[in-house]
Structure formats: structure tokens, C-alpha cells
């Protein structure tokens, strides 16, 4: 939840509510949970007026997990929950996701997410990572948009990849130097993953007449100058 819209949501959330974190536990207290710790958690963080967890709830969760709101684990959590909307988790998403995750408290959640983060970082060629990577794109889009704005792209890439990931630094500097590139299509986003795995550091095996999206052709040309 490190994209710009989310930051806006945070500030909006703060304006609306008089009491931040304090409101959540009070709401939770009014609906005592049964023997289900997962749903108890849901009650703790959910919006008072809606049946879903909102931005402050997320913030609260983060502080309970002792991580920053900008931590990639939040995005991984969203992925695990297959969340549809940025900043919100529905009851079903929460229930299903946490059950799959086998976590019922912030501490356990932290542990699981940590493990996941390590696994994803270790092997970017796994199908799990591919799924996560694609999810990140779709999740970060503004509603109704097909493409992802370039600023979001530039912010998102360093989150899903480690800094040392192949071609990442060069790509970011290329995007900085190319004001005409306004955004990324899903195809371009997905192709970059394949590109980063297949193409050598010096681009020696790059075929300019291949089927790479033309933005990557431009990228290589830019680097070779």
C-alpha cells in the first residue's frame, strides 16, 4: 500500500475521523467474536460504518505488526487476500486469505508474511513470484484505467524487486529520461519480468527484431548509446 492513491486515502481518512486508532478497538468491542480469532481480528480493524477494513484499519494492523505502512509485506498481504480494492479488505477476502495464510494474530501474520517475502525475493522465476508481480500491476491501477501511470510504475518496481534485480536500475533511469512514456500497459509490465530473466547484462542476446514490446527496444537502444 505504498502507491500514491493510498497516501491520499490515509490523509483523507485522518480528516474524517476524530480519533484514529482508538476508534477501531471500540468498534470491535461492540461485537465480541466467537471462537474464531480470524474474524475477531476482522472486527478489530474494520470500518465502523462498513463491513470491511479500511485504510485506518490497515494502518492499525501495520502498527500491530510493527511494520511500516510502506513495507512490501502489506502488498504481499493484499496479494494473499486477493484484495480487489486498494486500501480495503472485505470480510470474505479477510476470512479466506487469513485461513489460507494460517494466521490468526498480527504476530503470526508477520511471521508468515516475512517468510513469504523471503521466498519471493529468493526466486523471482517462481510461478508464485510471477503471480505476485502481475497482481501488483492490476492492484495498483486507478479504478477504470487499463494502464498504470508512470510515476506509479517507478514507485512500484523497486518494491516488487530487490534493488539489484537485473536491469532494474537502468530501466528506472531510462524512464526518468523519457518524458514521452506516460505509463505502462499490462503487456509491457509483464514483459519486463521475462526480459529481466532472459536478457544478458550487456544485451548481447537481445534481438531487436524480436517480439519485445517496443518500449524495451527503446530501452536497450538508450542503454547502448
Amino acid at each position, binding site marked *: 500500500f505504498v502507491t500514491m492513491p493510498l497516501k491520499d486515502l490515509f490523509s483523507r481518512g485522518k480528516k474524517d475521523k476524530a480519533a484514529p486508532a482508538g476508534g477501531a478497538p471500540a468498534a470491535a468491542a461492540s461485537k465480541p467474536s466467537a471462537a474464531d480469532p480470524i474474524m475477531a481480528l476482522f472486527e478489530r480493524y474494520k470500518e465502523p460504518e462498513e463491513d470491511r477494513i479500511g485504510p485506518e484499519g490497515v494502518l492499525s494492523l501495520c502498527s500491530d505488526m510493527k511494520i511500516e505502512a510502506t513495507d512490501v509485506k502489506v502488498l504481499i498481504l493484499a496479494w494473499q487476500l486477493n484484495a480487489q480494492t486498494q486500501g480495503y479488505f472485505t470480510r470474505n477476502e479477510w476470512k479466506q486469505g487469513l485461513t489460507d495464510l494460517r494466521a490468526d494474530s498480527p504476530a503470526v501474520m508477520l511471521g508468515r508474511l516475512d517468510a513469504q517475502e523471503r521466498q519471493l525475493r529468493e526466486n523471482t522465476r517462481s510461478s508464485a513470484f510471477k503471480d505476485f508481480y502481475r497482481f501488483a500491476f492490476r492492484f495498483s491501477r486507478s479504478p477504470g484505467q487499463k*494502464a498504470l501511470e508512470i510515476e506509479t510504475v517507478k514507485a512500484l518496481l523497486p518494491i516488487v524487486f530487490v534493488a539489484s534485480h537485473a536491469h532494474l536500475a537502468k530501466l528506472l533511469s531510462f524512464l526518468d529520461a523519457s518524458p514521452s512514456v506516460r505509463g505502462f*500497459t499490462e*503487456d509491457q509490465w509483464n514483459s519486463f519480468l521475462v526480459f529481466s530473466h532472459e536478457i544478458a547484462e550487456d544485451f548481447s542476446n537481445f534481438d531487436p*527484431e*524480436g*517480439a519485445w514490446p*517496443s518500449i524495451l*527496444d527503446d530501452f536497450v537502444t538508450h542503454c547502448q548509446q
Partner: protein
Amino acid sequence: KPPFHHFNALPRLSSLAGRSCDLRFRQWRHHRLVTMSQNPKKASFVIHKFKQQPPKDAEMPHKHWQKLKDAIMQIFNENAGELSFEELYRTGYNMVLHKFGDFLYSNVETLLKERSILLCEKVEKTTDEMLLSFVKQTWLDHKRSLTMVRDILMYMDRTYVKQNQRKPVYEMGLSLFCQYCTRAPRVKDRIRNLLLQLLQSERDGEKVDRHLIRSTTQMLVDMGKLVYTEDFEKPFVESSQHYYMLEAERLVSSSSAPEYLRRVESRLNEEADRVTACLSTDWSTGGVRTTVEGELIGKHMHTLVTKEGSGLVWLLQQDRLEDLARMFDLFSRVPGGQQLIEEHMAEHVSQLGRDSVQSPENSSDPLQYVNKLIAIKDRFDHIIQHAFKEEKTFTNRLHKSFEIFVNLNARSPEYISLAMDSHLRGHRSKSSTASLSEEHVEGQLEKALQMFRFLQEKDLFEKYYKQHLAKRLLGDRSQSEDLERKVIQMLKAECGYQFTAKLEGMFKDINTSRDLHGNFRAHVEQLEDPGLEVELQVKVLTTGYWPTQPVVQCHLPPEVEHACALFKRFYLAQHNGRQLTWQTSMGNAEMKARYDKQYMISMPSYHMIILLLFNDATSPLSYKDVEAASRIPPADLKRALQSLACGHFKLLVKEPRGKEVGENDVLSFNAKFSHKMIKFKVSSVAAVKETNEEVQASRNKMNEDRNPQIDAAVVRVMKARRVMDHNLLIAEVTKQLQARFTPNPLVIKKRIEGLIDRDFLQRQGANMKVYEYLA
């Protein structure tokens, strides 16, 4: 008493007697006949008991042989007249019968060998001058002798030789002669050298005895093909090669290419004749021809073709058809010769073509541009037809060159359309003096269409052609509707129905409008009070057929406005639901204007609108006044004012003077205007070549129009194939669009990305090279 022998071979002897023996001997008649038992009681043969063989007489074979030997020696010495054939034959026969075949054969062999050696010594003693004829004579004599010897020893040939698989006497004699005489080291070399010398002399122009050469080589052939090949033919080919190599080198530097070729042609004919007459080699298949042609032509092809001032290019420039034909004929005889000519011709044509399309002088006049290209094509078609035997590969190469350089100039499509426009308007070319008969013009149009075929960007041509046709039709500038239709038919045959559908629609509109005009006039006539002050002729154009024009609503003069409104009412009454929009930029007007006298002036509508403003003007009008009153768009307004005030017919006066029309200029009626012609035309909106900005704009529009076509092609192909490799897809799409234009692979790639984004296609998993169709 001599032993009595059984003649089991009697029937064969009698058959021998039946053979014709062309000898100087007396005919030998065989008297021994089969005596069968005539006893009527016994009808069968009587078989006698086998009698014991009498002991062999050891002396007999020697005696017999001596007899034969003496006889053979006589034969050799041409002294055979006194010999008895019968006796000699019988002698041989007896020897073989008595199992002395071996003895006889080896002795004969030895004798013939000795004879050959003797003859050889005689030959060696002869002088060079006499050698060949002496050899010839010796050879003939020896053959004759051998024939006789063969006849005597015929029995041995047929029995002993056959059974023991030895060489028959005649062949043996020949081969011994060959081995010990003709091929004796000193003789062999001398024969060869003499022959080669004679041939060389003839080549050098001396007269030699061809008959002698012929018989000598024939002798060698008779001795065996191998003998001929090794002893004569091979050295002959080598010496020919050497001879002609020197000759070629001498000639090539001292003569011009056509001269050299002429000489070579005659030399080759000579040599062919010589070989056929003197030698037993076949000119066409023997190695000699290839070698000689290789030396004379093959080795110097490149030099000849590229010779300064007389090589292929020069010949082409000078239209030296005969020399070119000779070069083609000779070069065709060696490998790679024809291709060499083809290469250089193509190079030359490409150079001419490139110069032509890139010359600024040509680019300034589209008609000239196209005519120059047609001239090149005509010239080379002619050359290929008359000098290069209409060789298909040459024509193909010519066309390929054209395809390349015609497309080097991006404005070729526009120019070709303008050239055709010029013909269809009936313009007489400055340089041509040809008549303007319809057939001639049709021919010119066909030739221009030939150039069209070479274009890669046919869709660009279509756009321009449509534009120019529109101007022709609307301005009534077409010389002949027949010709126009013919061109449409030609284009349809070239490019298909789709290409010409809209063009044909344009013609339909014109015809419909003609009928409409008649109806409109009738309608006006029966109106009570139409209040019509101007005569209006309307052309109704169906949107979609005609090139799109930006819709401009300028301010029409009231009289014109009234007439237009009347027509609109009339039309819409008949065609309810349609919408009419006036295209004021494309109209024409005929005006009566009073200056010093009454003139009848034909002009575009904008001109008319502007001039009418001055009817009521009491003082000069500023540019801005005119602009406000007419609402004509600035670019067109400036053009019109320029034509009215600075053109050929200065109907207005502009302050300040000068060609350019500025926004602060002031215009007034030119009271001083006068012209000798009462009736004239002011700058009709003729088709002119576009300005650079307009060209760029057209190009941009073209690219935009092409994108959907590329998309459609990609989808079509993917729908059919479902799954396809990236490079194959690009190739297939290019192929599909080739009839209209040649798409850039990078552009196709970008369109594919767009289609992926729009969910028409997807990539196949992590395989970046393959696409899948999404239904």
C-alpha cells in the same frame, strides 16, 4: 601317301567360298563337296569309326610357316601377284587344324612387329617436310597389306583366335604398327609437332594442306580413340589455349570492345570451320571450343565490359545495338557471361534512374519527371528486345531496378498522378511535338500506369489520384470522359474493384448532377416568382466517394445565397432525410465585369465573393474588412487576393504593392484594368504539386489511415492461424498489404502491442515470440 582327313568343316568352307574376296588373286573355288551316301536302301549318314591319329610331323609346322612367311613378305613388298591364295589359305588352315595355332599366331605376331619396326626406321629417316605424307602413305599401304594377310589367315581368326580370345590378325597388325611405329617416341613427337605447326600456320593466315592433316588425324583415330586423344587432341587443346591466350592479350589492350568482339567472332567462326574440316574432333562437344572461348571471351569479359569509352555502358549510351547483340551472343557462350552483362546493365539503369528521380530539375515538373522515367524504360525495353534476345531475366532485372529507384523519391506517387492529370486535361507538353490524338494520349497514360506498377505506396497514389480527379471533374477540366473511364478500367485491372469503387462513384455523382440540373431548371421555370438573379449549376457529391474537404461556411453574397436556398429546398423535397452542405471552396463562377469594357470572366467562387464586395464599396477595403465580410479562411483568402491583385489579370489593386498579401493591406477596385481578351479565366483551381507542408500533412494522414489497415490485417491473419510466431506474422501481414503499401515492421509491432492491450491477442505464456488469438 598323305593321310586322309575328315573334313568336318566342309559346309563352312563352302560358305567361305561364297564371300566376295576383293583380291588380286585368282578366285579360289572350292571343289570339295559333301558326298552323301546315295544308297537308296540306307537313308542315314554313315559314321566312320574314329581312326587313330597319325603321328605329328615335327618338321611340318616350320615348313608351312616358312611358306606363309615368304608370302607375307611378298605382300609387304607389293609383290603379291604371283601368289596362290588357295595354297596359302590351305597352309594356314592345316596348321590350325593340326593344333599349331599357337605357333602360327606368335610367329605372325613377331613378323608384324618386325615389319612395324622396319617401317618406323624408314619414317624416322624422312625429313620433316615429307614426314606426314610419308607416314600417310606408309599407313595406307600397311593397311592394305594387313587386309590381305587377314584374308589368308581367316581360318585362324575364326577358330583359334576366337577360342583363345586373342586379337584378330588385322587389329593385331594395327596395334603393333601403332605401338612400334606411330607411337615410337621419336615418331610420335614429330607427328604431333608437325600437325600443331601446320594448324598454327593456318591460324596465322598461311595456306596449308588440310587434307593431309585430316588423314593423319584419321589415322590416329583408327588406332584408337585413346591414341588420338592422348597423342594429338590433348596437346592440340593446350596449344590452342596458349595461342589464343596470347592473341587475346594482344588484342584486348589495343582494341576497343566492339572491335575486339568483332575480331573474336570471326576468329571463332574460322576455328570452328578449321576443326570441322581438318580434325576428327567435334567442334561443339570437344574440349577445344570451351578452351578457346574461355581464352578469348571468358578471361577478358570483365575488362571488356568495363572498358573506358567503349565498354558496355558506352555501348548502351550510344544505342549500339549490333555491337551489344554481338557481345550478348559471345558472352552467352561462356559461363557467367550473360549474368555479367545483366549485372552491369542493371547497375547502369539504376544509376540513370536514381539521377532522374533525384534531379531537382525533374522534380520541379511532374510531367517531365514521369516522362523521363518512361523514356528510360522505353529505351531499355528496346535494347533488351533487339540486342539481348528479349531475355526474360534481363526484363525482370530491369523491372527490379525500377522498383527500387522509383520508390527512392517519396513523391513519385504524387508526380505520377499529376502527370496523368496533365494528360487527362489535354495539356500539351512543352517539349513534345506529338499530336494530341486520343490514341496517343491513351498510350501516354498506359505508360504512366506502367510506372504506377512499380510503386510501393499505391495507397498514396490513390489518394492523390482521387484529389486530382475531383478537381478535374468539378472544374469540368476533363478532356475526354472516355479516356477517364479507360484509366479507371486499367486501374481496376491492376488493383481490383476496391481500388476504383470510389472513383467510379465520383463519375456517377457527376452524371446524376447533370440530370438533376435539368430537373432543377424545369422546376424553376414553373415557379411563380423565383426571384433568381443568378444561374446556379449544382454538383451534388456523395460524401465518402470524394476526398474530404474541411467544411467551411463562408459568407455568400445574397443573390447567390438565395439561389442556393432555392436549390436546397428543391433537392430535399425529393430526397427527404439527406443533408446538403455547400462546398464553397470548390466552386466556380462566371461574372460579367465592367471595367473599360464589359468582360466575361470565369473564376473560382472565392474570387467571386471577394469581388462582389467591391460592388457596394465606396472606399478601399482593408484585408480585415474583406476577411470579416466574406469569412473566407485566411490561407485561401490570401491566395485569392494574391491572384486578383498580383496575378496575370489584375482585377484589384493592392496597397502596398508586392507579391505577398499582408494582414494590413488595403484593396480597391482597379479602374485602370484593361485586356484585349473580352472573355478569360482567372486561376482555376488546377492541380498543382503540393507545398512541402502539405506533403508532410498528407504523409501524416496517410500513416494514420494505414494503421487501421494494419490492425485489420493482423487480426485477419491471427484469426485464421490462431497461434503464430512473431516473425512469421510480420511477414504474412506485409504480404497481405503489399498491394497497397509496404508497412514498416516496427510499425506493425506497435500495432500488435495495441491489439494486445485491446485484448485481441495475447502472448503465449512466457514465450515472447508467439502470439495467440483471443476469440
